[in-house]
Structure formats: structure tokens, C-alpha cells
């Protein structure tokens, strides 16, 4: 807390001299404190490191390491690492595995981010509106969520993906539209506690409209929860995409994603072609783990900020 000094007696209007001793050191804004707290968490920082590595790997890698990922090379299939293939060998179509990892990683990360952002935006708005309005509207909106949650997620996504799937945008939208339910519940809960706070009442007394309450007061104050949730959403979306890809509902040739890669290499293990399965599996595990570590770290850091000290 600060040691700023209340002026002795209320100064006459407009008079100077109200400047007491202002505390400087403790004037960290909320987010700076969050960042400081986050940086103390080594696992979370490691998560950021892993993530940065994979983003560079997937998006900048292909600029450094050129491979042909469009034309199959049937003369050089299933080559072991360093032995005619690239550093990680080649797969059953003769694609360079390292290059393919970069391509698949790009798709997985893109879809993960887009789907998570879409889900969070829908979920946040839905939850905030339901929480603020309350009563019958809230009840109806949340029953919609309950109903959608009771439909098996993967099944619906599979059907829709089969019908509209195949490219990055479509898959992102499909995954996003079917995963906003959990954030909606989370934000509604947050808004229920926020909306009875006095600053929301104060804005209402001023005549603030509902949209102002939602966008200026409720959502900014629920932002900590939202951001933490986004990281978990990304991890979930990447895993869901991997599942879709594994079931052959992922992106189509010439594009690929990590799930499709694992699926393509199903027989490879029994033949001893480990380089077609393990690298992509490790990448998937590492990226999902990185997002979860970051999410945990953020959650703790946001909590710290919410405490008084």
C-alpha cells in the first residue's frame, strides 16, 4: 500500500499544496505485478520458452530449411534419418519428416489459436450477457449451454468437419463454435460476483447502458480469467485437432497437421520406422504441455494480483 498522505484538512477548492509524500516504489499496476509474479514461476517460463521455440520452428523454420512438401517422392519412402532422407528421415510418401513437422505444426498452432480466440469471444460475451441480465434470460441462455454440453463434442465436430472441413479456417471455426461452452460458464460465474460490486452499481447510477457495463467494467475485470482460459482453450483445440486428424478428418493434402501425421504413420511403428511417429508425438506433447504450464502460471499470477498484497 502507499504511504501517500491525506491533506491535513480539506484544502479549499483548487488550492495547491495537496501533494503529500507520494509513494513511488509500490506503484505497480495490476498487470505489471502479474508479469512479475509470472516470471517467478520457472515452469511457466519454461512453457513460454518451449512455445516460442515451436512458433519459430513452425513459422520461420521453413524459410531456413527448404523441403518439398507438395510432390511425393516414391523413390525415397521411409528413409531412416541421415540415410538418404533429411535429418529426421522421410515418411511413407517420401516427404521429409522435419519439414513435414514444421508444416503440421503451423497448421496445428494456427487452428489452435484461432479456435481458442473464437471460442473465448463467443463464450465471454454469452457468459457476460447471461450473468449481467440474470433472471429468465440467464436461465434460458445457460440451459442452452447445458444442452450443448450434453451433446458429445467429438461426434458433432466429426460430422460437421466431414461436411465442411478440410481447410484451416473451416476447422478453426468448427472447433471454436463447439468449445465456447466452458468459457461461457466460467465468465458467467465471474460476472455474477462482479455485477454486485459497487463500481457496477455506480456506473448504473450514472446512467451507464448495459453494453457499457459489459465492455467497460465487467469484461475488463474478468480479463484475468479470460486470458488464463484462452491458454487452456488453445491446448484443448490442438488436442481436438489432433484427434480429428488422427481420424482422418483433419486438413487435406497438400496441407497437414500433427494428428494427420500420426495417423499416416500408424503402420510405421510396426515396421520400426520410429522417426515417423516419435518426433511428431513429442512435439504434440511438448506444445500442449507448454500451454498448460503457461495457463497454470498465469492463473497463479492473476490470483496474486487479486490479493491485496
Amino acid at each position, binding site marked *: 500500500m502507499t*504511504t501517500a498522505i*491525506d491533506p491535513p484538512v480539506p*484544502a479549499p477548492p483548487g488550492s495547491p499544496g*495537496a501533494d503529500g509524500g507520494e509513494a513511488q516504489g509500490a506503484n505497480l499496476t495490476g498487470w505489471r505485478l502479474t508479469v512479475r509474479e509470472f516470471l517467478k514461476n520457472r515452469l511457466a517460463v519454461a512453457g513460454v520458452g518451449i512455445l516460442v521455440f515451436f512458433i519459430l520452428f513452425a513459422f520461420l523454420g521453413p524459410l531456413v530449411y527448404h523441403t518439398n512438401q507438395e510432390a511425393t517422392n516414391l523413390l525415397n519412402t521411409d528413409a531412416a534419418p541421415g540415410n538418404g532422407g533429411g535429418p529426421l528421415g522421410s515418411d511413407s510418401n517420401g516427404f521429409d519428416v522435419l519439414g513435414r513437422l514444421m508444416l503440421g505444426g503451423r497448421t496445428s498452432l494456427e487452428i489452435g489459436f484461432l479456435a481458442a480466440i473464437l471460442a473465448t469471444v463467443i463464450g465471454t460475451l454469452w457468459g457476460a450477457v447471461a450473468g449481467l441480465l440474470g433472471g429468465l434470460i440467464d436461465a434460458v441462455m445457460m440451459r442452452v449451454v447445458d444442452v450443448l454440453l450434453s451433446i458429445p463434442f467429438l461426434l458433432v465436430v466429426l460430422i460437421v468437419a466431414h461436411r465442411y472441413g478440410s481447410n484451416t479456417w473451416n476447422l478453426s471455426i468448427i472447433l471454436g463454435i463447439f468449445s465456447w461452452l466452458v468459457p461461457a460458464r466460467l465468465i458467467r460465474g465471474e460476472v455474477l460476483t462482479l455485477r454486485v*460490486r459497487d*463500481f457496477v452499481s*455506480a456506473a448504473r*447510477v*450514472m446512467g451507464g447502458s448495459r453494453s457499457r457495463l459489459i465492455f467497460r467494467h465487467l469484461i475488463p475485470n474478468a480479463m484475468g480469467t479470460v486470458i488464463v482460459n484462452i491458454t487452456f482453450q488453445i491446448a484443448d483445440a490442438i488436442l481436438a485437432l489432433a484427434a480429428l486428424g488422427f481420424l482422418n478428418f483433419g486438413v487435406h493434402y497438400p496441407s497437414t497437421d500433427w494428428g494427420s501425421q500420426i495417423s499416416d504413420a500408424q503402420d510405421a511403428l510396426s515396421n520400426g520406422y520410429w522417426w515417423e511417429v516419435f518426433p511428431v508425438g513429442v512435439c504434440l506433447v511438448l506444445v500442449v504441455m507448454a500451454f498448460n504450464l503457461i495457463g497454470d502460471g498465469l492463473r497463479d499470477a492473476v490470483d496474486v494480483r487479486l490479493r491485496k498484497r
Partner: protein
Amino acid sequence: MAPLLEVENLSTHIQLSRSMVRPVENVSFHLEAGETLGLVGESGCGKSMTGLSLMGLLPPGGSLVDESSVRLAGRELVGLPDAELRKIRGNEIAMVFQDPMSSLDPTKTIGYQVAEPVRLHRGASKAEALERAAEVLALVGLPRPKERLNDYPHQLSGGLRQRVMIAIALACEPKVLIADEPTTALDVTIQAQILTLLADLKDRLRMSMILITHDMGVVAGHADRINVMYAGRIAETTETRKLFAGMRHPYTQGLLASIPRLAQDNTQRLFTVPGLPPDLSNPPAGCRFAARCTYATDKCRTDEPELVGADDEHEFACWHPVNGPLQLATTQVRETPPGEPADPAAPPRKPLLEVTELVKEFPVSGGLLQRSKRSVKAVSGVSLSLGPGQTFGLVGESGCGKTTLGRMIVGLDKPDSGTVTLEGQQIDALRGNELRRHRRDLQMMFQDPYSSLDPRMRVGAILREPLQIQGIGSSKEQLERVSDLLGEVGLPKNALERFPHEFSGGQRQRIGLARALTLNPKVIVADEPVSALDVSIRAQVLNLMKRLQASHDLSYVVISHDLAVVKYLADRIGVMYLGKMVETGGGQDIYERPVHPYTAGLLEAIPIPDPQVEARKDGGGIKGELPSPLDPPSGCRFRTRCPLAQDTCAQEEPAMRKFGDGHFAACHFPLQTPVLETVAPAGAADGSGEAPAAV
């Protein structure tokens, strides 16, 4: 004979991530057997931490510094292994905490919780311990204790829970009871009951008690000796009467002088202690009070005064001791001749704000598919009127509906029936843009300075928001207006760029007041404007509110549980009980000539910071607890707790009767004789009464 508890050089340090806080430094005192020692001071002065340090219950990172010594009956407690300390805690030294809502385990029965220390310390069997629990619960005045052993905490009211807490502390008959703000979370009427109970039990069980509180009124009536703490040190220590009659430390003097008194002339400014307590991670050199002290000299800022005194009985740490309490020019009571034209209690000629017959009920539960059958009757037909530049004060215990009434006046809640009229315009019927424009005239100041400002917005944005919403002025004009406002409430200009969490509670409350003023409202509803603040800060904010009222020609509706605060601010006072207005009148009328037994009981229950006044009290006050507003008593709602209640009170609801100029009360057996009435037509200009309404 050696004292029961001897504390020497107690220093507690708490290591934080970046800094070290020293909440308690070199505190020495002693406690005789059978004595009550008061530990008073503002929040953050180290009084609670002193209590916890005695028990060895330090927060994470906390440690006692080497020379600290706590001796209980000659036995050193500092440095004892944890296993030994555990045998002492709850057995020889017990503690009662502040918040009865959170200090009981919600998943265990109260019988189990009271029996627990007996089983731990006495090795009693379950049955024996439960028997003892029933015994102790009877001792603390829990009705039908045997039947309630299997109750869970949520089934009990706040006052009863605090009794259970006391029972837990007393179960093993400790030698020392530490009561840390035992009544702060309770209503005044319950507070009086609990304090009387504690004093009574202390005598019966021959315990010693350390009473930790911020309320000078509480220690005045219930402590034998008092330690005044400031910034982690003891500023002054002596016996109660001596302290109040002849204090030597300027802080004690200021603390006492800044409390609003009932007997005070409310046209005078309150005395204030300027500034804030120091930051204990970096305490100032010299006397810690120097920065706020009017007597301070250079010596005070460099040399630290020792705790010394003329005799052992009265010690103080000050280089320039004062002599006795400030002679407040404000303490003489003004005699207002009745019928004087300037009498503030006289009804306004043309009311600015009129509230008639407001009713609000909140249905209990009721989701999508359940139908709610019962409702909380929060406000049941309340009327009041307020003239320009006037202040109406609303008092009552928590749960009496005063906050709901305030929220309906500013339009935060919609009344079920009744009207709110401002300058002839009925507010509660307005919608949309009409309503938005009229909100400019009705603003609100909130109780909790921590939740009333959006933590994500800078102060500048917070203060500009009303102007933006109402679309007033260009952004340059808005900025000018905002910095003018900051000056008016006494905050520096650079506050605009800062976030609310960088300010203290008092400063936040100033920001809240500035925000309410931004739109130049005609009426501000202030809901418990100072109850979250420390005494010395409270006086600053009250003075500011009075000054701004005069300079802006504001009308206030002040809501508070503290009759002294309301009396200081208000021209007219309304006393509410369980959703009904039971008495309205001028401040002097209410204070000197209370008519309703509830008003009289409320006045009796308020602790007065004067040991002589407190000693004269006979422990009267109001018995029992507030009945449930789900099912309020028939007839007069106060009858279940009223000493004068008779059969009529249950059958017939009393009508508002006139007892003087602008003084009305609803009671069948009033404490004063009513003035013979010339029945005024309903909703007449005086409009202050509550018309008899059948519920």
C-alpha cells in the same frame, strides 16, 4: 506478586518478497490476574498482530525477534517447541476472533466445535466433551444449548455465532482470553450484549482479558487499563479513567477528539488527525507519530521517545506530552428554542425529494422452474421528504432495509409499490433516455471504498465516466472538470494517472465522493460513507462531506448504522426497524427525547468514549436478535424485543403520531406524550410521517 502475563520487548517481523514489515516493535506490557486490558489503535497499528504473537500464531514469513519475551505465570512462551505451545493455545490462552461468519467451520456441528478443545486438552471422551460443550454454551447464553449441539453454524445468527466462538474459547477455562475485535462485525445492540457477556464471564471464571478494538467507546466501558498503540508501538498506557481524563500523548488526544459524539453541535467541524499512519515496512525515524502531530518539533523527527512516565501507572512515549483531552468547543449542546424559523428540524417548505410508501420485497430463491413462495420484506411502506440543502439520516441495524431504501431512491432497485419524486418528477416511472437524464440529479456514494472504484480504470477515467455516459462537454472540458473535482476533494492532480489500489481507504472515499459530484447532482445518497474508515480518517471525510454540501447546495440522504455519524451530518433522522420507519425527527429530538423504545435502546447500546458515562449504564439495551424479515412479527414489528410490549402491539400496527415539531413515531406505548393531533392530510407538505399502512 508477579503479573499473570508479562510481555517484554515483543517485536514481530514479517518477511515479504521484497521488504520486511515490522508490525509490532518493542512492545512491553503486563496483565494482572482478573484484569481487562484494552489494546486500542487504528487498523494497521499492530494490535491484532500483538495478540497473534502472544499465541505464537504468526503469518507465513513472520518471526519473533530475539529479545521478545512472553511469560505466562512465570513460564517463558517464546521459543517453546510447537508441541508445547499447542498445549497452551486454547487451553491457557484462548482467542475470540473478529468475524463470526468465517471463524467457525461450516461443515461441523457447533457441539463438535465447542467440544474439540476439551477433547484435545483435557483428553475427555466424546460424551464428556459434549456434556461440557452444552454447559459452556449455556454459560454464554445460547438458548436451549442441549438441543442446539447438533446445529450447524449457518443455522445461527451472527450474534449467536459469536457466542459459540466465545464458548469455544472458554471451554477449557483459560487464564487469559484474547478478544480480537469481538464485536466489530456485529450490530450495536448485539455488540452491547456480547460485551456485557464477556465482562460477566471474565468475573465469574476469574480470567484475565485482552480486549483488542479500534473503538474507544468499547474500551471506555469494558477495560481496566488501556494500551494505545500506534504504528507498531505502544504510545500510551494507563488505567482507563486516567487515560480519558488526562491523556498525555497527542495521538490519544486526537483519536478521542475526532470521534463524532452524539452530544456534539453538528454545525462545528470535527477535529481531525491529519495524514495517514506510516508504512511499517519503512517506518520513519524518531517518533512515528511526528508526521501527523501538531506539536512535533525537529527533535521528534530524529529521536525516538521512550515509553516513560511520572509513575509506573501512566507511561507515554512523547517528547511534548499534552495535558488531558482537548476542550472541544463543540461539546456544549445547543438549546434550540422550539419553533425558531431557522430550525433545521422544521419541515422544508417545498420538498426536493419525496419518497412515499415505498415497498420492496425480494423473493427467496425461485429459479426457472421453482415458484418462490416466500419473500424478504426489505422495505414495507416507508415515506420521507427532503428539502434542498438538507440532510436526511437513516439509522438502523443491518437488515432493517435502509440500504435497499437508498438503492430505490437512486433507481438501482425498482420499488414494488410507492413513488420517488424529485422536484415534482416521478423518477421510478421513467425509462431509457428520460431516466438517464434524471440520473444526473441523483447520485450515490458507496460504503466500501475498495469495491466502489473499478480496479481496472485510472482515477481520471473513473471521474470522467459520468460525463462520458451523459455526453457532457468535450474531452478537454471533461478533463478540466475532473481536475477541478480532485482539487475540491483535496487530492493531488497527479492522482488522475493512478489506479485506485494506489490510494488509501480515505482517499478512495474522496474519489468516490468526487465521482458522485461530477454531474452536479441535487441529491447524493451516501450509504455508510465512513463505516469502512478509521476514526481519524472518518472525521476528515465527514468534514469534507459537510463542506461540499454547503458549497454545492447538496442534499444528502445518509445511511448508517452509527447514530453518531448520522446525527453529525443530518438535519432530520429516521430510525428504521425491519423495513419500517419507527421514528423520525430532528437530531436533537431523537437524541434527547427519543419516543420509540427501539430508538431509546439503540441510544443506550452505543458505546460512548467516556468511562464515566459507560459506568452509569446498567446493561439495559435491547435484548434478543432481529427477527427474520421473511416473516416479520404482526402488529408492531419491534414487539418481540420491546420491554413495553403488550397484547395490543401484536394485534394492531401503531400509527405515526406527532410528538413535537417534525417529530413523529409509531408506537402504542411511547416514552413521551404525543402532541394532540390535528390530523394532517396524507402526503401533506411535512410528509415526513409514515401513514398507517396495513400489511
